[in-house]
């Protein structure tokens, strides 16, 4: 049976247009005429269904050619997919607790959520970025930002586990993040909301212009371990710094941020931050800035931010609190940051594979402006400045601009590249993707997206060497695209073939959370390094059980530690007595298997926590404070063997004043 739901119109468009013309009094006519100029809306251009099916079909047992990492948005996680089949491979828990695995519920992982505001088990993850070597994704780690309580996480791509989360000081909404520089020297963050940058400053909101400042953050990455630390921040005028990208090739020493709200509005930004014809791209010479910091040109400010990471291969994540940060204030130090006027409320600056072209789609602009890096350098040398804002030279627009893409559609946002001379820009309001030439700046192709596209992603599309295979459009509403599931549909993604002259729609699938940005990397860059087990010999967890005969229960006052082993198909010990109401019980469960993908879990009746899943060779800890006497059954939550249902046990909890001795047994009935 074929169900046909007919809602193929785009109500978004008219709504947004109404809104816009209200906002942009006078600019309305311009926008309408731009709409007319874009001509007929782009079309579906889908391959014959069977051709498209063949292009996304990956036979059972065969592998996809790309890993794609899609941010989870308000889910806080990072999902992993195979392309072109769009099989979901995994959801990596990052900023949100995950009862499926026990991430954020186990004693090992809980410290990852510590911040200067306390334990925060959720965030909004936006822009995943894979570590790079010479401007190409290398597949060692993937970083992702937390947009709400500003943090950056690092995920190890040998285990696909979150290994580190660091908080950013002086930041309100870490949106322009977590992009890496050419050789992963730095990961960048930036404040989307400017805020008072002195810690906990209590001021009137309407003192915005005097008291509020922006902060651009540079986290140095240890090339061996991947561990991050806040090297320095740049304190900048109180605009909104919303997206960033590192340069590459000729511009490898630079990073670029887009700004909006140069109006410095603090209320009704929809209107008040949309008045100026141009906002800015901020260009930062990070190498120069780092040198200035090394020369002692920065100043130390007090701050409070958490850094959570693992010290060994296993064990408990640790939380270290940092109390100061080095800042470069543009009012005091100069010659490392410049503003490039850019129309209008730009949302993203993307750098072409050569590093020469800076594309900054303005979400309210009628063209896509393209700046030239070499012209920018020349303009700096010749001091072609319009003005200075808090010590930052504002370059002349005509000095840096090299082209404007006409008729890109309404609301151009993000751009990636195919390495064959073309750029692809997502266009939100008219809900389409436009392909244009980096030589002529002319649109050569356009195709619909369903519906209202945000970011787009090309396989290795931000690398020095992009792979012109697939483009993934990450769209904001699904509406009628899939079987309805009530008032809220999951966010869609559409896969396009971009190997030919024309973009062709191949596939359309629902995702998890709200993917903002995504990255895709050739499978062979990750697959050979993916770990199958944690080696038992290397288990450095302080409560690991590495000899099954050493399973035991130890009481230290009212703390009881259970050193438990799991193997198919039993726990040792599996009968425990002598635990009392009011004790704090730690179950340290070691999975003693060394076989790939043989996972054990533990769940205990009445424990106000999630289950705990333990992968081969790993030790995980469940904390439990029993409040009622009785017999507590526990069992293995992972279907591990034919006798999985037999993998169970009992814990006896007695009254606080009882004399039941502490005993533990296995196998003697």
């Amino acid at each position: 049976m074929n169900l046909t739901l007919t809602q193929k119109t785009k109500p978004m468009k008219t709504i947004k247009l109404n809104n816009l013309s209200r906002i942009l009094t006078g600019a309305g006519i311009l926008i309408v005429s731009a709409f007319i100029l874009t001509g007929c809306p782009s079309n579906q251009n889908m391959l014959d269904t069977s051709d498209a099916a063949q292009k996304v079909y990956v036979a059972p047992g065969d592998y996809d050619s790309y890993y794609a990492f899609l941010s989870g948005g308000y889910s806080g996680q990072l999902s992993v997919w195979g392309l072109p089949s769009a099989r979901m491979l995994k959801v990596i828990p990052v900023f949100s607790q995950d009862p499926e695995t026990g991430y954020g519920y186990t004693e090992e992982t809980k410290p990852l959520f510590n911040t200067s505001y306390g334990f925060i088990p959720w965030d909004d993850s936006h822009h995943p970025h894979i570590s790079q070597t010479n401007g190409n994704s290398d597949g060692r780690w993937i970083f992702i930002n937390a947009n709400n309580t500003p943090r950056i996480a690092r995920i190890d791509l040998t285990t696909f586990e979150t290994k580190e989360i660091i908080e950013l000081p002086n930041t309100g909404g870490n949106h322009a993040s977590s992009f890496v520089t050419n050789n992963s020297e730095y990961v960048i963050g930036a404040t989307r909301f400017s805020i008072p940058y002195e810690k906990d400053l209590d001021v009137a909101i309407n003192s915005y212009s005097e008291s509020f400042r922006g902060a651009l953050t540079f986290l140095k990455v240890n090339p061996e371990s991947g561990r991050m630390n806040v090297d320095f921040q740049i304190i900048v005028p109180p605009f909104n710094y919303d997206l960033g990208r590192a340069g590459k090739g000729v511009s490898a020493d630079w990073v670029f941020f887009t700004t909006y709200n140069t109006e410095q509005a603090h209320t009704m930004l929809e209107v008040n931050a949309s008045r100026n014809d141009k906002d800015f791209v901020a260009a930062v010479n990070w190498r120069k800035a780092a040198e200035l910091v090394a020369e002692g040109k920065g100043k130390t400010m007090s701050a409070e931010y958490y850094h959570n990471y693992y010290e060994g291969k296993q064990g408990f994540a640790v939380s270290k609190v940092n109390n100061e940060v080095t800042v470069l204030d543009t009012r005091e130090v100069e010659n490392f940051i410049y503003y490039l006027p850019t129309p209008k409320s730009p949302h993203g600056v993307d750098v072409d594979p050569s590093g020469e072209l800076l594309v900054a789609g303005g979400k309210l602009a009628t063209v896509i402006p393209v700046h030239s890096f070499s012209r920018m350098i020349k303009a700096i040398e010749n001091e072609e400045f319009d003005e200075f804002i808090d010590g930052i030279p504002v370059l002349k627009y005509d000095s840096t601009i090299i082209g404007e893409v006409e008729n890109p559609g309404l609301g151009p946002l993000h751009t990636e590249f195919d390495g064959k001379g073309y750029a692809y820009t997502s266009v939100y309001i008219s809900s389409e993707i436009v392909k244009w030439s980096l030589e002529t700046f002319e649109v050569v192709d356009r195709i619909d997206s369903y519906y209202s596209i945000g970011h787009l992603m090309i396989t290795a599309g931000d690398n020095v060497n992009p792979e012109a295979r697939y483009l993934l459009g990450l769209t904001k509403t699904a509406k009628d695209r899939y079987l309805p599931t009530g008032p809220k549909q999951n966010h869609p993604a559409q896969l396009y073939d971009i190997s030919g002259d024309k973009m062709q729609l191949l596939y359309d699938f629902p995702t998890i959370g709200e993917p903002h940005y995504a990255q895709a990397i050739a499978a062979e860059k990750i697959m050979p390094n993916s770990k199958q087990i944690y080696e038992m010999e290397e288990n450095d967890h302080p409560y690991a059980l590495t000899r099954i005969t050493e399973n035991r229960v130890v009481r230290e006052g009212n703390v009881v530690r259970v050193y438990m082993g799991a193997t198919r198909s039993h726990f040792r010990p599996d009968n425990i007595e002598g635990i009392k109401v009011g004790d704090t019980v730690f179950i340290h469960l070691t999975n003693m298997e060394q076989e790939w993908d043989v996972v054990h879990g533990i769940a205990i009746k009445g424990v106000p926590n999630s289950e705990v899943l333990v992968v081969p060779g790993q030790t995980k800890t469940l904390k439990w404070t029993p409040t009622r006497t009785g017999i507590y059954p526990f069992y293995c939550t992972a279907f591990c063997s034919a006798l999985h249902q037999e993998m169970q046990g009992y814990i006896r909890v007695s009254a606080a004043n009882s004399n039941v001795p502490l005993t533990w047994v296995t196998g003697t009935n």
Partner: protein
Amino acid sequence: MKSLLRITTVLALFVTLSACGGETNTPDKKTSTATAKSESELTSFQLEHGIGPVVEPITLGELNMEWVEKGRAIFEMKCEMCHSMDNRVVGPALGDVLEKRTPTYVMNMILNPGEMTKKHPEAKKLLQEYMSIMPFQNVEREDARAIVEFLRTQSDS
């Protein structure tokens, strides 16, 4: 020329076999070089000494105490959850295993349990009896040899 052709055919067959099918996806693949396809095709060596990376019979010399201690440590870490010397646990008692099996067989069973329990008649029989597939525990060939040395010291006789 003929032999070259034969080598190429064997190679092609090997590539085909390893390119498809579950066998290559088992963790045993690190150490397994065996290509036995079914029981009927087992060689008499394989019947006696098992299927796996050890393709020459092991001869036991004088007891090497260094190996015994190494084998004991590995056994305690990676085997003892399922095996004791005198009682059935998850798997069979091992006190007398060297009286029933050759040292080579024991090594191949440790190093290639997945294929053994699928193809070797004795291992298949035990799987039917114990109903748990013996896992590969991420050990090297020298480790398996050390475990054999340790098992020598555990023999009843």
